[in-house]
């Protein structure tokens, strides 16, 4: 290779993006640790543990959103099962966290508590190695990756597309959820894993650990963004876009869409798994409801709100929706679904490209207001305008990788 890959990751970033990344890194790696660890609790700028954990959690969601955007926004494959990959990563790392409890559980046994009271004599085989940090980190990537690879291999090979794909991913996560609910499955039933104590021997509740997890999440997010950006601007990304547009045409010029889809799909699942692994120690629980179909739909909703097909949009969407949810469930606990519901409707109606699309439009408007020409109103609010912008596209909703 001519230039090291890490350099190439940064090389084609526009200046504004580099500045934004730098600011973000500064905030995540300097401001948050200082505000949480150094400033005393009474200080006005002190950042409480609540906020660090909350922001850390949202960072994990952002990673998931980026992973989702890669597959949905850029490859046109809507997955309604990404919650499962996230949860699998979480469970993989959760096993390690459970093992780290050691004999501090209620029963003082080497086995996790739930195994004791379900009368398991020993760890099931798939828990082998779960006391190794590195192995479980590997599992957190490998399990979602392998599941995604196998599933994707069959699905893409059979040319399952559009809603058909979406629905079977939904079936997949739903089946996984039911499976994990069972006590026999060996993952704690619906209670899942909780009451973690340590990572690598360090208390999980210490402020330092909290900041470390936060910083790791931020690092992973930055990595995902750079990687995503690199992918979508590479020829690989253009092939993906082409597949999204006209898969059969792509085959006729000699690309095998199966391999392309499978690669991005698996990558996306692996990123989700990593996000899940970081999420679990920060929120302190992993249980099967993370695999519920609604959770996966929500991931898609974040991306749509932020702006599908824009990495930063995915990040913004995950942030906005989750902060809004946090804010509303506290201030208007009984009415927050109205707020959130109307937010989603408003975004679709008034920001067809999501929040990021709106921002972009505002910018380009301001910058390129032609003096002599009166631009046509291009927000498709009249049926005719709608039809016009559509006539260049395929109308069949199924063909468009819905």
């Amino acid at each position, binding site marked *: 290779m001519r230039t090291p890959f890490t350099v190439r990751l940064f090389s084609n970033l526009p200046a504004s993006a580099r500045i934004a990344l730098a600011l973000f890194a500064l905030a995540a790696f300097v401001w948050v640790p200082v505000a949480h660890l150094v400033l005393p609790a009474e200080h006005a700028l002190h950042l409480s543990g609540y906020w660090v954990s909350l922001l850390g959690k949202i960072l994990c969601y952002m990673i998931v959103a980026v992973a989702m955007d890669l597959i949905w926004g850029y490859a046109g494959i809507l997955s309604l099962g990404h919650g499962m990959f996230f949860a699998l990563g979480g469970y993989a790392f959760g096993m390690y966290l459970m093992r780290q409890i050691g004999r501090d559980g209620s029963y003082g046994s080497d086995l996790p508590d739930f195994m004791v009271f379900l009368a398991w004599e020993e760890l099931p085989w798939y828990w082998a190695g779960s006391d190794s940090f590195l192995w479980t980190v590997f599992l957190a990537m490998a399990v979602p990756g392998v599941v995604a690879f196998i*599933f994707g291999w069959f699905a893409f090979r059979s040319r399952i597309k559009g809603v058909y794909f979406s629905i079977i991913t939904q*079936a997949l996560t739903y089946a996984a959820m*039911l499976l994990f609910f069972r006590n026999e499955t060996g993952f704690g039933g619906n209670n899942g894993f909780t009451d973690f104590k340590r990572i690598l021997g360090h208390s999980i509740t210490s402020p330092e650990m909290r900041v470390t997890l936060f910083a790791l999440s931020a690092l992973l997010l930055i990595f995902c963004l750079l990687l995503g950006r690199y992918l979508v601007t590479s020829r690989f990304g253009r092939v993906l876009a082409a597949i999204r547009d006209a898969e059969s045409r792509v085959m006729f010029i000699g690309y095998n869409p199966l391999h392309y889809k499978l690669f991005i799909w698996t990558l996306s699942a692996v990123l989700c798994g990593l996000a899940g692994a970081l999420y679990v120690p920060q929120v302190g629980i992993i249980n099967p409801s993370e695999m519920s179909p609604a959770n996966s739909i929500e991931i898609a909703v974040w991306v749509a709100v932020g702006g599908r097909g824009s990495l930063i949009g995915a990040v913004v969407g995950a942030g906005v929706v989750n902060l809004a949810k946090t804010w509303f469930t506290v201030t208007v606990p009984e009415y927050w679904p109205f707020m959130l519901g109307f937010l*989603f*409707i408003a975004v*679709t109606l008034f920001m067809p490209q999501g929040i990021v699309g709106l921002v972009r439009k505002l910018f380009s408007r301001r910058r390129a207001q032609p003096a002599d020409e009166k631009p046509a109103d291009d927000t498709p609010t009249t049926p005719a305008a709608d039809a016009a912008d559509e006539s260049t596209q395929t109308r069949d909703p199924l063909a468009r990788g819905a």
Partner: protein
Amino acid sequence: MFRSLLRLLVLLIAFAAGSVHAALPPEVLSGLGSKSFGERIDAIEALAIAGPAGAQVLDAIEAGDFGALDERPVIVRGDTVIDMASGEPLEAAASDVSKLRVNNRVRRAISTARAGVELETGSEAQRLAAAQTLVDNASERLLPLFDRVIENETLASVRELVVLARARVLLGSDDPADRRAAAEALGESSDRAVLTLLAPLVERQPGEAGAPGPWNDPDASVRAAAADSITAIERRVAFAANVAIVFSGVSLGSILLLAALGLAITFGVMGVINMAHGELLMVGAYATYLVQNVFRTQFPEYFDFYVLAAVPVAFFVAAAVGVVMERTVLRYLYGRPLESLLATWGLSLVLIQAARVTFGPQNLELSNPSWMSGSVELFAGLSLPWNRIVIVGFSGFVLLLIWLMMQRTRLGMFVRAVTQNRPMAGCVGVPTARVDTMAFAIGAGVAGLGGLALSQIANVGPAMGQGYIVDSFMVVVLGGVGQLAGAVSAAFGLGIFTKFLEGWTGAVVAKILVLVFIIMFIQKRPQGIFALKGRFADQ
């Protein structure tokens, strides 16, 4: 045995004396208050044959109005306390009475006792019911009664039941001939419980050191008769069980279908990924609830018809909600199915919470009208619940309606054309916006009908729709998007498949297997069961 006969005698004499209240000897009544269950039951049996007065007491006991006031048996009517012995009201507060607790045991004793009386004296319906009760609760004591009934009864159905009941008792007889006759007679039964009775007859007692012991029943002819009867019953039972599974599969299928049909239009035909579909079901169910309440308060005498009245109401209310959704939000999203996912997800949040704050978060109570309650016994051993039968029929009705609408009307053709090529449909003169609204309204209305049907089976609450949305999408997609016939076969296929699996593996594993099956099936047919074929399909 002897004691009850004696009591009977006493009672009959007292009854002849004509004084209703005096007819109930104090020891009978005090027996009711006894700590011993046996005595209580005896007292109840005595009451059952004690004529109108006894019946009155039994009614009071069942209604929980019977009690004791300082050990004196009394009936509480509203606020007045009536002395059982004298029939006179007492100067006592109802709250001072310590009521006799009725529980299942007492209730069963009452019904058995009553049946014993009604079997001879009741109306035809009462006799049949009594015979059914007694088959399960036969005892030696009743043998003379059975013999009389077999002799005198005019209704064959009652007679057959009593023969079975009698045979059950006689199976324990000391006389091999009786036992053989009983075992033979029981061969006509379709009741699994009879198998439990017969089985011991053909088994050996445990012998020494693993060697076979003596037969439970020493008489070979009895054993042979029992074995024959067991085979006959098992065959009948197995047949009934299979029919029952198929029916329950069809029934589940029809529920899936009704839940999915609306979606087959809004999503399948129009291409709107309608995440608020479940909430349209909910709207239909709530509309049904409101209709029920109107009937309950305004026309209680016509309460049984509320479901019929709810059919148009559920349709139009859900359709109206659909129109509002379409006009305000979805019309801007045609051809952008992904955005419709987002917007309808928002709509669904709003609708759920709206239901929650207006109707409360709890489930609402919906009663089946009487003609949808209970079950019909198709043949012995197989009874099908009415509400399910009605719903299977209803799903056929709705299906027919939609099929006619989509295939036989111009509107249906317009809808299909508009969704295939919206601008061009306008260019041949179709008012696309109006067609969209109409089509969405119909889809929503059909979802409302689905909600109505669900309200007769499952719970009605703000989040009820969430439970159906996943299944509905599975049905539509498995069938092949846009294919009505596909949705139908998918729904019934899944229904029956699920039910057979459930029998094998239990509900949880069955559900998981069904999902896995769907995933694998789509691999084989990536466009659903009724895949669109043709060159346009993959372009």
